[in-house]
């Protein structure tokens, strides 16, 4: 099953791309997915482990042991700086 992973702001610059598509097994958690992301964008692995980056699933921030489903949209979000 396929999931989409999007990169934003500084992470998009770091990744050099806006998104990846990953073909994952049933029962894959966000934590396991982040290992696939690390293979695609090596710098991101440590940032996820050190919680410098937040992971969202279908527009909400959820625990890393959440299991993904086919068609899910995951995003890697650097610390927010909206407002002023």
């Amino acid at each position: 099953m396929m999931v989409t992973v999007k990169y934003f702001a500084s992470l998009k610059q770091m990744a050099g791309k806006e998104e990846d598509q990953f073909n994952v097994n049933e029962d894959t958690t966000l934590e396991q997915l982040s290992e696939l992301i690390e293979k695609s964008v090596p710098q991101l692995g440590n940032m996820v482990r050190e919680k410098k980056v937040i992971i969202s699933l279908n527009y909400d921030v959820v625990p890393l042991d959440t299991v993904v489903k086919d068609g899910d949209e995951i995003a890697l979000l650097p610390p927010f700086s909206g407002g002023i």
Partner: protein
Amino acid sequence: MSTALESKVRIQREDFSVTDEIEAIKKSSRNIGGITSFLGTGRESNKGETISELNFEHYPQMAEKKLAEIREKAIKDFGLIDMSIIHRIGNIEIGENIVLIIACGEHRQETFKACEWAIAELKRTTPIWKRETTSKGEVWVQATP
């Protein structure tokens, strides 16, 4: 200048009119006594650096969802009559409007509390990022409370 006031939470490139947004929210009730607004604007200097330009990027759909959640929680928790939240994206010149939060209620106390809470919550939960252009180049800004 946008006069499209169809939604109470919006993320848009174009500027907004504070007067138009206040008049739109006034239509919510004839019992509004107090309206507190917070307007964030582009400052020229930050930590000693002179900023020539700001640029905001957002995560579409998630950012709007978080703004809608902030609005609903503010109305419920503070007993407001209504709230609207608008954040601009793209290039922002120094002095230009960035974000507007309007809280209206029967009495003033709850509108101050709700407006102050909402801008802090926006900074905490809404996927929007600021890039500053200074003489040293472009920098993605780290979150500040």
